[in-house]
């Protein structure tokens, strides 16, 4: 279960607070996956008590967008900590889907990759298994296939530690790179933090999801939770 709250001493009108929290949640807590399961109790609450002596912020205030962005970035930090925990996870993985025809399609594809058990076990085993990533893209529950073009899709692993080459191309314009540098793949997949980049090449929208690997420890923890 995900539970959380965010409190602030800013004065914010309740309707504005609702829209700020919804905006932030849709870009943070609703973009994480540890195991693909949704709880009956998930709740994020936000309270603004107005202890700071300043004018109340509403949807028309000049500070509204600034506060909305700050709350969103803040919520992303908090949401990412949940993924970093991940019940025995060893990897923190950013799944970035770029150049999609629509934001919704990018998000659905990012979620599909993030929830794939076989992608997650491959990450745990440090296996550069691009086939499983393509497979998860292919069964993503899209309304239609307008964002997908098999001749334009690119898939890469991205190193996040500053080492070069930063990008390891797995699929280029729909063509699998069969001569992958396995040594470099091992180096990138050995990192605690890494990124899976998917470039759909069909538009300009992008979405991110944060996920983790699935380890033996996950099964150990959850095998006897109730008893």
């Amino acid at each position, binding site marked *: 279960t995900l539970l959380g709250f965010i409190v602030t001493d800013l004065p914010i009108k*309740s309707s504005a607070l609702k829209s700020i*929290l919804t905006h932030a949640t849709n870009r943070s807590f609703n973009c994480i996956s540890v195991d693909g399961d949704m709880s009956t109790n998930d709740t*994020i609450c936000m309270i603004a008590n107005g202890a700071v002596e300043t004018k109340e912020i509403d949807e028309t205030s000049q500070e509204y967008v600034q506060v909305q962005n700050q709350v969103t970035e*803040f919520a992303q930090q908090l949401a990412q900590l*949940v993924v970093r925990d991940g019940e025995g996870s060893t990897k923190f993985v950013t799944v970035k889907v770029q150049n999609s025809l629509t934001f919704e399609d990018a998000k659905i594809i990012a979620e599909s990759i993030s929830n794939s058990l076989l992608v997650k076990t491959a990450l745990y085993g440090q296996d550069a298994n691009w086939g499983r990533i393509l497979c998860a893209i292919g069964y993503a529950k899209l309304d239609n296939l307008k964002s997908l073009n098999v001749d334009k899709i690119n898939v890469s692993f991205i190193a996040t530690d500053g080492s070069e080459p930063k990008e390891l191309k797995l699929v280029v314009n729909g063509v699998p790179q069969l001569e992958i540098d396995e040594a470099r793949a091992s180096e990138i997949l050995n990192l605690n933090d890494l990124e899976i980049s998917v470039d759909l090449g069909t538009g300009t929208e992008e979405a991110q999801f944060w996920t983790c690997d699935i380890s033996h420890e996950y099964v150990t923890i959850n095998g006897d939770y109730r008893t």
Partner: protein
Amino acid sequence: QQASKSVDKYALYVPKNGVFPRGFQVGSTASGVKKNGNLDLGIIRNTNTSRPAAAAAVFTTNKFKAAPVVVSKQILEDKNGTGINAIVINSGCANSVTGEVGIEDAKKLISHVDSKLGTSMSTLPMSTGVIGQRLHVNKISKGIDEIFDNNKFGSDFQSWLDMAKSICTTDTFPKLVTSRFSLPNGEKYTLTGIAKGAGMICPNMA
């Protein structure tokens, strides 16, 4: 895998100090719901009286909503998102799939907190833990008494960290984030957030 597993997540991700928003206090205790005696009950309360607090929440879209979700949603709608002054959170029992008695149990706890605060309908409940077990109302009520009667509320770093610990279940570290920001007029404000979650995580809240 050995290298990955040796990472000390607590040391990496749990802060050692922080700045916190004005007008909030938190208190926590071990009510006995968790069998291992760990902290399992936390309350956050608003002490600012200069103006009414605003509140908002997003909830699971799972068709089976736990009692605290149903009750919190109703309170927020009834109060139109204003005048919420406390959140009471227990861990160890989710009060989920508990039917009408679960709803009544959740209402008992918030009435208890409201009576301590001298208000009504100003507390939201949250629960996390095992699904399908009835809430231990007696233990949690005693815990609420202990927090209020012994004034276990504080606004210091340790109080906030203990609050974060009290809502954990299988989490390997408490999740506490706090930051201070400046408005264009120079006024500073603070955001503090606490979360729990380790497994059963793929939320879609609305």
